[in-house]
């Protein structure tokens, strides 16, 4: 069928395209629905049910008991608050550091920008776990940093702060996330029309004021992408706390992990998971409000 004939036969062709389109997306649809949509909805439903600890049968439905367990238990609430605090702290520090590096690469480096960008992500080719392991060895009372400081005579005792605790979790998460955030911010900064910066200076603004009033506002889309990029995984993080968190650095994700893989209280765990999901959805909505959907999509 040559292209001219194609244009003539509109109606049956449209139906053919519709069919082809639908057929092509069915596998993906199926996968997403079966492995994502249905399981998440099941968890949502499970959060409102109470299961018998041994027989796993449904004892009562619907019930708010699971949520009550979360909110009436001080230990759990503390972990939740700590998680929120840590996540916000990590977001601020990692986005800040990533912004500085992205700015440097955009404005102060003239060649090989992308190579340098990629270089920052090189350590992760092997595994996130590998980087976490490295940090575990560095930190800790008998870790590399402490033993180095002591052997050099700079300290006489291991620094407590550098042990396995919440501070370490913050440090490690910042260090592991900021390389990934450089790219979206970089893209945003590169796109800025340089003559706008010149115009700002021509009108009397010093380089610093130019940054504040022109560069930074125009780079916000990339910053928001970066914020989303780090906030969502971090709030559900459980691997890093398990590796460097010790006893005081536990995060909400660890609680969920325990309920599902250790305590086998899926009902309570589901409630916890739903709470986390709500926080995430809230954060996403707030950010979308601020920047608008299209702009976000553009910068992707």
């Amino acid at each position: 069928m040559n292209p001219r004939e194609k244009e003539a036969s509109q109606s049956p062709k449209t139906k053919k395209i519709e069919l082809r389109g639908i057929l092509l997306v069915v596998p993906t649809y199926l996968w997403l629905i079966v492995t994502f949509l249905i399981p998440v909805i099941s968890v949502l439903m499970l959060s409102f049910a109470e299961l018998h600890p041994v027989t796993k049968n449904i004892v009562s439905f619907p019930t708010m008991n699971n949520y009550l367990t979360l909110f009436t238990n001080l230990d759990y609430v503390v972990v939740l608050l700590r998680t929120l605090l840590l996540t916000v702290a990590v977001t601020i520090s990692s986005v800040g550091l990533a912004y500085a590096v992205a700015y440097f690469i955009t404005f102060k480096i003239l060649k090989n920008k992308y190579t340098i960008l990629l270089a920052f992500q090189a350590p992760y080719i092997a595994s996130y776990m590998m980087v976490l392991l490295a940090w575990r060895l560095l930190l800790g009372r008998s870790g590399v940093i402490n033993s180095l400081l002591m052997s050099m005579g700079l300290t006489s005792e291991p620094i407590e702060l550098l042990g396995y605790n919440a501070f370490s979790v913050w440090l490690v998460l910042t260090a592991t996330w900021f390389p990934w955030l450089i790219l979206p911010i970089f893209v945003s900064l590169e796109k800025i029309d340089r003559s706008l910066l010149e115009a700002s200076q021509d009108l009397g603004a010093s380089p610093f004021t130019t940054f504040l009033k022109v560069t930074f506002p125009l780079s916000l889309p990339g910053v928001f992408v970066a914020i989303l990029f780090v906030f969502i995984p971090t709030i559900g993080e459980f691997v890093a706390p398990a590796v460097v968190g010790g006893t005081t650095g536990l995060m909400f994700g660890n609680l969920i992990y325990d309920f599902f893989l250790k305590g086998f209280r899926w009902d309570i765990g589901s409630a916890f998971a739903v709470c986390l999901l709500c926080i995430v959805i809230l954060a996403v909505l707030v950010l979308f409000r601020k920047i608008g959907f299209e702009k976000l999509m553009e910068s992707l």
Partner: protein
Amino acid sequence: MKIDVELKNVTKKYGEIVAVDDVSFAVERGQFFSLLGPSGCGKTTTLRMISGFETPTEGEIFIEGKPMTNVPPFKRPTNLVFQNLALFPHMNVFDNITFGLRIKKVPENEIQKRVKEMLELVRLPGYEKRKISQLSGGEKQRIAIVRALVNRPAVLLLDEPLGPLDLKLREEMIVELKRIKREVGTTFIYVTHDQGEALTMSDKIVVMNKGKVVQIGTPMEIYEKPKSKFVADFIGGTNFFEGKYTDGAVEVDGLGKISIESGAHVSKKTLLLSVKPEKICIGKKLKKVDNIFDGKVTESFYQGRAITYKVLLENDSLITVVAPSYGMERVFGIGEKVKVGWNKEDARVIT
């Protein structure tokens, strides 16, 4: 007569490439001063050095009498209207315009007053709250000018601002610019490659080519008395005749004698003459003209107000004749034999 901007032997090199070569000129207060030349002649680089975005390799720049060669742009009493306008997309019209004023911490009521005045000046009253994306090309142009002018700079710099506009809009903007200049009185330095713009608006023109200043003068001087072949040709195009000077006339091989003004002193034996196309008469019979030659029309372009002819002369040289259509009964056709002629005083000697 105060000098607002002065360049002394300014040179700008990028490695081996010399973009601006030993350029000197002075701009008087209140002048409309244009830098005119083809692409790559160094006019934009010169403008950027005046505004502070480039630093001269050699030479000095004075603004209002003070040395400003190394002063950063945000400390200079100049404002630039960028070629691509560079209006801040994330601010509305009002915030764009008041950007510079706020940096200088001008009091609020003064800001309001100036913005209102300026918007009325460019005939866009009430546009304060509009978004940049909502403006048309001509409106953006005017807002960019306002944003610069509202700061009351000593010198307003304009970098080919009319480039992206269509013909009608450009003609309107030329009239607008002249009017604004008249009302505000600020010194304007205008960069363009379009000699029509420069001739229409300027008090003085600097013609540049390949980084050098070729000629400085009023529009009339530049047009009527070009001092070099380049200027004669670049400004409005021209016809060149070369030949030996004998006794009040130039003898061109194959063509004959062209009588020239007796006042044109010549020390050389060979002269180059420039005759502007609109100074040449064309017709079947010519009377009362000093120089008349035979020719054959090879092309004709009817352009409304005028008709442009390409005429082949007896020495096989092709000249351009622009004849007003007023008074012409018909357009001469291709291949027609005609007579062309001009008066003595219409041939310029190019040294």
